[in-house]
């Protein structure tokens, strides 16, 4: 699918697209909507992220736990002056629902979209639900790219009016099995029409370098913007859990050891004698170390050719994003002027 950019060179002209096209090292973050109808939570989180990222992903029922919808929360984020990346999974919606929601999302001002298969509902809080999976993530990418470029619905019928134009993203899991196939799967997502990629959390830099080497050999980094996923560790237990139980996530022992060392001053106190203050101090020490590690990871990732930015996933810890971005020397975020109305009108 040959993309048809605006006459100004932009496909969409979202802030994320402008920052990437201008060649800046992009920063995206993640905002998890609440398990309630509370708009205030979104506003508070948006305030924490504003100014320290170029766009913010709003998860779509992440880990199959029901939360405020990505588009609903995204609308509030737009009102708060932050640019959302809407997430859409194939788990909960068929092609009718996805397209209709995307028409709505575009009308409400959303311009970036991340296409995902979605975690299986078995993981979440409604394991007895029926799943959809009418399409998979690659087919979803293809559909939304065609909605923008060929201006048709999935069935081939043209829109009766303006088409929704999204800067289309997809995920990549460089270390999931079969590892040898992962660069090829990335190539498939690009072929389907992905404009940007956000990866699974990267902790193992040498392994990621190997992946990126293959990506460069295949010339993929020249066809898509790759944002490497990073996230601050919160505790040694979290680091161990990620290493042992999350598929496609490699956490080197070195980081687990560093997290443990950060909690060392409290390590000899028996569990039942740890005071509230002790626990808080230890949690703070862990968090500081987690943030430090995250900053180092970003600095190393920045050196890897073909990486266009980072995607910071500080799950339920949005406060961590600013110190990370600041510590990595990525503040202030660039401002690339928006395309003028005239430029933005495409033929």
């Amino acid at each position, binding site marked *: 699918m040959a993309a048809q950019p605006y006459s100004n060179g932009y496909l969409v002209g979202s802030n994320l697209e402008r920052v990437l096209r201008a060649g800046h090292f992009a920063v995206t973050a993640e905002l998890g909507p609440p398990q309630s109808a509370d708009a205030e939570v979104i506003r508070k989180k948006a305030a924490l992220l504003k100014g320290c990222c170029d766009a913010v992903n709003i998860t779509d029922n992440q880990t199959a736990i029901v939360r405020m919808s990505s588009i609903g929360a995204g609308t509030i984020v737009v009102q708060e002056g932050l640019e959302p990346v809407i997430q859409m999974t194939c788990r909960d919606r068929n092609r009718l629902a996805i397209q209709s929601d995307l028409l709505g999302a575009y009308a409400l001002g959303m311009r970036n979209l991340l296409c995902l298969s979605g975690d299986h509902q078995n993981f979440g809080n409604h394991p007895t639900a029926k799943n959809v999976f009418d399409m998979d993530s690659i*087919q979803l990418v293809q559909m939304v790219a065609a909605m923008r470029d060929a201006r048709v619905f999935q069935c081939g019928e043209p829109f009766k009016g303006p088409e929704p134009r999204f800067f289309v993203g997809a995920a990549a899991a460089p270390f999931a099995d079969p590892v040898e196939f992962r660069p090829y799967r990335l190539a498939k997502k690009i072929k389907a029409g992905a404009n940007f990629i956000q990866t699974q959390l990267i902790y193992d830099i040498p392994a990621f370098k190997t992946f990126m080497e293959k990506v460069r050999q295949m010339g993929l980094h020249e066809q898509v913007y790759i944002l490497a996923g990073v996230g601050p560790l919160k505790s040694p237990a979290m680091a161990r859990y990620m290493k042992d139980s999350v598929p496609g996530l490699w956490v080197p022992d070195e980081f687990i050891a560093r997290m443990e060392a950060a909690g060392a001053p409290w390590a000899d106190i028996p569990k039942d004698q740890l005071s509230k203050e002790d626990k808080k101090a230890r949690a703070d020490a862990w968090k500081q170390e987690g943030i430090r590690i995250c900053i180092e990871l970003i600095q190393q990732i920045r050196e890897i050719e073909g990486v266009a930015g980072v995607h910071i996933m500080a799950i339920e810890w949005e406060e961590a994003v600013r110190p990370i971005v600041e510590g990595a020397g990525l503040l202030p975020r660039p401002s690339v002027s928006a395309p003028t109305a005239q430029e933005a009108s495409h033929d």
Partner: protein
Amino acid sequence: MIVAEQKSLDEMKTLIGEAHNVLVVGCGTCVTVCFAGGSREAAIVAASLRMATKLDGDAAAVSDVTVQRQCEWEYLDEIAEQIKAADVVLSLGCGIGVQAIAEHFPQTWVVPGLNTSFMGLPTEQGIWAERCAACGDCLLGRTGGICPIARCSKSLLNGPCGGSEDGHCEVNPDIPCAWQLIYDRLSSLGRLDLLLDIQPPKNWKAARDGGPRKIVREDLRLAVEEE
């Protein structure tokens, strides 16, 4: 084959309710092979129900009979009298067998003694696994003979997703990742090129999503009419 599992004795008891004259009907085909509803199981279920209803103080007369195939009316005709005489028929056939009885004997109250689980095969002694979801448009020719519809937890056509690890699916370590299996098989057969093509969205109309399905074979219809 169709693979099924017996319901609990308690549920069977609830399903037969107050009936006194109960006929347990086994089936000699798929459910015999998966040890859920053959003649042996029908006899055991009948005996268990006799015992259980007796212990409850209201003994039911429970007999059993097994036909070669419950999903064809001609086999059911052989036991028509027994079926008609029963207050309730407890079918140990798959869901198709139960419905064949209901359709063929409009006056008969029939209940299922099995939960029909899937279409699959025995992989080891005592283990059966799903293999086909009857999607109506078989794509095994593109996946090295391994079905992503029935065997990938998300029915992905362009897998594997990021949840595949050590050969198993993210959903459960006991589930092999279908896409890892496909990858390994295509790799060993030198056909990994097949995985580079993007498979378009599936036409689910051929599957159950298009409504209940039916096949009409005009060639066979004509033969009937000519007879």
